[in-house]
């Protein structure tokens, strides 16, 4: 038995190793083909001598995001790496495991500062918590560039972000148009505390209240972005509201839950589903008509613009204070348009 469990432990270790080998290739294959070859080499160097990087002539910019394991952040990362390749600078990309880990992100920021970087790209989970460190960076002359939810203060020289409030308002308008500007609509959001969660929820609700008075919002729920939990929540809501005409999912996990609920209850075509972001499952649903359409941000653009702005700031060039990276409505009609398709991740 002892031997057996040892063997199993070994097996698991082997699995780890096998697993490690695979993803190293995966993100490379995903990002733009032009940048892959250049990107592989400096990434290795960076790991080996990250301290030395600061002393070398090369420009080093740490990018600290709000996460790494969502597809969205992977897309941001690929944009950032593209910019790094284009401008010949070196970046590192990291983020905490969940968006609740404010302290973890602060540690990352601290560690990044210790490496004496040329600039920092930062998407704050909690701006207030980061202020002392950001002030330190400012006093040391390290420019800060905010991205995504940005940094809620005057310190950043620029912020590259989606205007989530405006984007969600667009989703509300599209929803109203699709259901004939009246009836019941439910909303499912990933969480009630994060900036994006709050902005998208409020952007959607406020627009409905202001411009579409005949639409009644019956439920606002929070599924943690967890597909399974969002599914079961959405099912209960659809059960409770037989006249429900529309459902808005405020991020990828949430809208997948809505789509599952509609499919499992056989309500395809009866409920208008409007989503956010992309992902293979969502794209399929839009193509097949189960989902009417979604808002896409420009994650690759966010990553690219923030690194670009950082480089410009380092070189003393003028940078725009707010860089709107844009958002787009996409549906079955324009999903394959080249400029839209470029923004959608699988």
């Amino acid at each position, binding site marked *: 038995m002892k031997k057996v469990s040892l063997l199993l432990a070994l097996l698991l270790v082997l699995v780890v190793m096998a*697993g490690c080998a695979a*993803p190293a290739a995966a993100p490379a294959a995903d990002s733009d083909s032009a940048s892959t070859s250049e990107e592989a080499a400096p990434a290795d160097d960076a790991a080996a001598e990250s301290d030395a990087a600061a002393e070398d002539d090369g420009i080093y910019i740490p990018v600290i995001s709000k996460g790494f394991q*969502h597809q969205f952040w992977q897309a941001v990362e690929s944009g950032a790496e593209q910019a790094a390749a284009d401008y010949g600078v070196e970046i590192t990309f990291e983020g905490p495991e969940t968006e609740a880990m404010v302290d973890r992100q602060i540690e990352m920021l601290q560690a990044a500062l210790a490496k004496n970087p040329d600039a920092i790209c930062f998407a704050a989970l909690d701006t207030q918590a980061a202020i002392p460190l950001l002030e330190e960076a400012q006093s040391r002359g390290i420019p800060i560039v905010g991205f995504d939810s940005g940094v809620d203060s005057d310190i950043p020289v620029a912020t590259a972000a989606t205007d989530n409030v405006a984007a969600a308002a667009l989703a509300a308008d599209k929803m109203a148009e699709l259901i004939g500007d009246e009836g019941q609509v439910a909303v499912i959001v990933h969480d009630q505390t994060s900036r994006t969660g709050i902005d998208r929820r409020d952007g959607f609700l406020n627009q409905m209240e202001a411009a579409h008075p005949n639409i009644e919002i019956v439920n606002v729920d929070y599924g943690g972005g967890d597909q*399974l939990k969002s599914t*079961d929540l959405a*099912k209960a809501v659809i*059960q409770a509201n037989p006249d429900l005409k529309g459902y808005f999912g405020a991020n990828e996990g949430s809208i997948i839950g809505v789509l599952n609920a509609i499919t499992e209850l056989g309500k395809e075509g009866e409920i208008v589903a409007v989503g956010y972001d992309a992902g293979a499952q969502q794209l399929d649903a839009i193509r097949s008509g189960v989902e009417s359409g979604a808002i896409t941000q420009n994650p690759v653009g966010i990553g690219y613009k923030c690194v670009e702005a950082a480089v410009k700031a380092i070189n003393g060039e003028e940078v725009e204070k707010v860089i709107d990276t844009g958002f787009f409505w996409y549906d079955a009609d324009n999903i394959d348009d080249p400029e839209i398709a470029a923004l959608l991740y699988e």
Partner: protein
Amino acid sequence: MASAATTAAPRQSILRSDAAQKLLAFGALILIFAFFSFASPVFFTWENIKGILLATAVNGILALGVTFIIITAGIDLSVGTVMTLCAVMTGVAITNLGLPIPVGILVSLLTGIAAGSVNGFFISRMGIPPFIATLGMMMMARGLALVISGVKPIYFNDAPGFRNLTMGTLVADIPNAVIILFVAAIIAAFILGKTVLGRYAVAMGSNEEATRLSGVNVANWKTAVYALGGFFSGLAGVVIASRLNSAQPALGMGYELDAIAAVVIGGTSLSGGQGTILGTVIGAFIISTLTNGLRILSVPQEWQMVVTGAIVILAVYLDIVRRRRQ
């Protein structure tokens, strides 16, 4: 004899309180059902009940494994993320490697058993407390799931039968996932009541030292119990992957607490030695019924957490009261 009278008296009262606990959980479920049925006309409809059943499947299956582990006076915090790891491994097997669905299922189950065995090894051979060992496994499994999947969901679009595994219907209009839960529960009840493994799980939880002195190889059997917990995680991995038609690598945190809550509400004692599969299944249903019902009534979700938490505390308190009486 004087002692005959003294043994007879406590026996009766214990029986009474034992039965009371079981009735209590079941009664609570009925009560919750009755309440929501009154409060909303859509609650007590077949379509909604089907939704509740389906929503119980994953947590219920996880809770089955956790029941065995808690009966040994242990704990398993890794069931949720191990489930995710198992789902990802199924995805790798079926989608990435193009293996047939049954092989994918087998891979999931074996991954679960392997992870559980490692837990058992840490606990019974290396002497690491269950809380720490499984906490470590929780993080390792989460990391592995992300690494192996390349931090991306794996879809099962190339294996169209896979989704039917849980969402199809074999018996009447009941989704297969629910059938899987009930069959798994029956198997678990059989293992607990009728096999050596179940017997030793209870014995170890009741008095581990006495079990050891009786010549039982406690280390091996404990490892087996954790491996069994892993098996159920693997089964839950198949169910969740099939239902979502994808292996979502970022999922799984927090599932272990729901499973533990279900087990505890079902009357299994955290101090070991006692617990029933029926109780666990009822516990899992109480949680999903509450979630569903409060959603239907549009009660703010924050309150739902408060209610579930209060029920967990109440269940444990009743367990303490009962043991104090003994």
